[in-house]
């Protein structure tokens, strides 16, 4: 949240440790094009900001963002305009990997390396490198946390509720699958799930009715900390605290709730927007023909999956600087 007096530094991008081999030294001038969905909520907004902040750190990078949009048709146009402008590398977070695949392929064919961020292009020919979070892993992490907690309490046949993000995104389906798979190992399953649309208000609306539907809940996983603000408000309004709640993504706000120790929200599983900072750095390296200095290889790897970490009261201190403002 932006208006916390104690709000964190202007950029959520953490100051990086200097690279060992001087990769940060100015090199060949490169133009990096950037396209992402409309910044209509905290996570995506953090993506855009992190990308920009990462680019600013380098005097040899010219950053060219295009109009973020939630309309596929327009994002295709936007990427086309970047191809026409002959940028040196592209960072693309597609609204939908499958739908932007073709235009990414065009870019690659035009000799522009594409760094695919977050939502994946189905066709490996369409991109040079993918970096993103582990959606399935996120579900798994949340599932394990819930499973362990409930086992500790000795609950059998628990009521487990899941609030998803946008239902039509593949990442949502991955997260749910991971969650279900992990729960299965404890012999548990999800009792009810509903999708909210990643906004505070929809989170609030869906949670309000879900809480009515289930008078006693044992655990609740909410996929997204942005909508989580609304979910928490609904829980407080209903005066409910009998269950464990786990969040998703890792917003600053969620971390503070966890830190307080008095909230139903006891953990969140990360899906960090810092990936955008890394993506821009990777794009720079690729465009300049450099490798990652901590690795042995001469070139940047083909894919990098961030681990989804579980933030709890115990380790939250360490994560606070990485939390994004929702």
């Amino acid at each position, binding site marked *: 949240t932006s208006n916390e007096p104690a709000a964190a530094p202007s950029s959520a991008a953490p100051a990086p440790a200097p690279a060992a081999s001087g990769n940060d030294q100015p090199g060949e001038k490169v133009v990096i094009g950037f396209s992402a969905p409309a910044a209509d909520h905290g996570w995506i907004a953090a993506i855009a900001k992190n990308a920009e902040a990462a680019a600013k750190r380098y005097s040899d990078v010219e950053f060219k963002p295009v109009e973020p949009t939630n309309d596929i048709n327009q994002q295709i146009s936007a990427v086309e305009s970047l191809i026409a402008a002959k940028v040196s590398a592209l960072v693309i977070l597609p609204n939908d990997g499958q739908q932007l695949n073709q235009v990414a392929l065009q870019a690659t064919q035009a000799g522009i390396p594409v760094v695919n961020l977050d939502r994946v292009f189905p066709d490996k020919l369409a991109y040079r490198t993918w970096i993103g979070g582990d959606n399935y892993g996120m579900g798994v992490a949340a599932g394990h946390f819930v499973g362990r907690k409930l086992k500790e309490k000795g609950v059998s046949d628990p009521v487990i509720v899941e609030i998803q993000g946008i239902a039509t995104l593949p990442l949502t389906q991955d997260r749910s699958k991971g969650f279900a798979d992990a729960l299965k190992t404890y012999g548990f399953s999800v009792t009810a799930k509903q999708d909210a649309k990643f906004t505070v208000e929809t989170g609030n609306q869906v949670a309000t009715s879900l809480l009515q539907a289930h008078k006693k809940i044992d655990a609740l996983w909410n996929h997204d900390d942005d909508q989580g603000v609304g979910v928490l408000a609904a829980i407080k309004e*209903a005066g409910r605290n009998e269950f464990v709640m786990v969040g998703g993504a890792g917003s600053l706000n969620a971390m503070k709730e966890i830190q307080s120790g008095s909230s139903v929200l006891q953990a969140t599983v990360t899906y960090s927007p810092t990936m955008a900072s890394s993506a821009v750095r990777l794009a720079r390296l690729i465009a300049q023909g450099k490798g990652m200095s901590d690795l042995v290889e001469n070139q940047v790897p083909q894919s990098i999956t961030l681990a989804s970490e579980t933030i709890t009261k115990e380790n939250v201190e360490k994560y606070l600087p990485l939390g994004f403002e929702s």
Partner: protein
Amino acid sequence: MSEPTPPVRQAAGARGAQADAARTNLLSGLRGVGELRHLGLFVALALLVAVGLVTRPDAFATASNLVSVLSLAATIGVITVGATFVIIGGGIDLSVGAVMALASVWATTLATQSYGPVVMAVCAVLVGTGAGLVNGLLIAYGRLVPFIATLAMLVAARGLAQRMSDRKTQLVQQPDNGAIVSLSTTRVLGIPLLVYVFALVVVLGWVVLNRTTFGRRTYAVGGNPEAARLAGIDVRRHTMLLYALSGLCCGIAAILIMARTTTGSSTHGDLYELDAIAAVIIGGTLLTGGRGTIMGSILGLLIFTLITNLFILNGLNTSDQLIAKGLIIVVAVLLQRRNLKERAP
């Protein structure tokens, strides 16, 4: 035509009697229709309630669930009252959701919050009314088509809200400004305060629409603007006021949404415009203006809210919800179709 008066009287008398009979028919017809209209909505509501009772006997008919439904309906309900005025007045307001978002963001900026909850509430109301006034000015004096003017406002208000909030969700500072949130958390007779606010707005809306010159003139301005002008009504000024009123309702709704979500955000109220207009129309108000009731709009809205509530109680997924919702809308309207005959081609 030399001595017309006596026979005419007589004839008029005769016809008077005949017409009286016709009148009785007509009236009972009218009443019937009037009731039927709301009857249709009541039947639809009753059906939904029945479904709820059968499918979730445990969860549906509980006081707490009903209160939940009302709390869910409150925010958009307040907006629907304003939308009813605008639509009866022959206009349309697409900007309602965005204006509510803007008002919520403005009221939750740190600067505003530092003055406490009263200033926050006043701020929300002023921002809402101000935006509505701009709509009204553009439409009444700038002669823009309402659809376009309020669409422009929708787009611009969302943009402004994003800019102001830097696209972040702004928390209501508690405990300092907890008074705002307490609208949602404090209950009187088991009912949260914001439901009372909703009820108050509905009652006031009804009184203004049905018992004041402003209300009467709203029907006239929407039904036949030329006739209204010839009757000496300042149609432009009235039109402007209608949009300001809608904006005022958005401002009040902003307070309620801040209370419910404990936040101000540029994403609040997404697609409210469609929902509000749909509720108004299902309630029997004509998009062409000149006709309609607050009661109908609120019933229409409750039907919508109840549908979603029922679906979630029954664990239906959103895709099936959408399909069912489409069908239910059609059925609900068919139930009251007769009243809309005039409109049909």
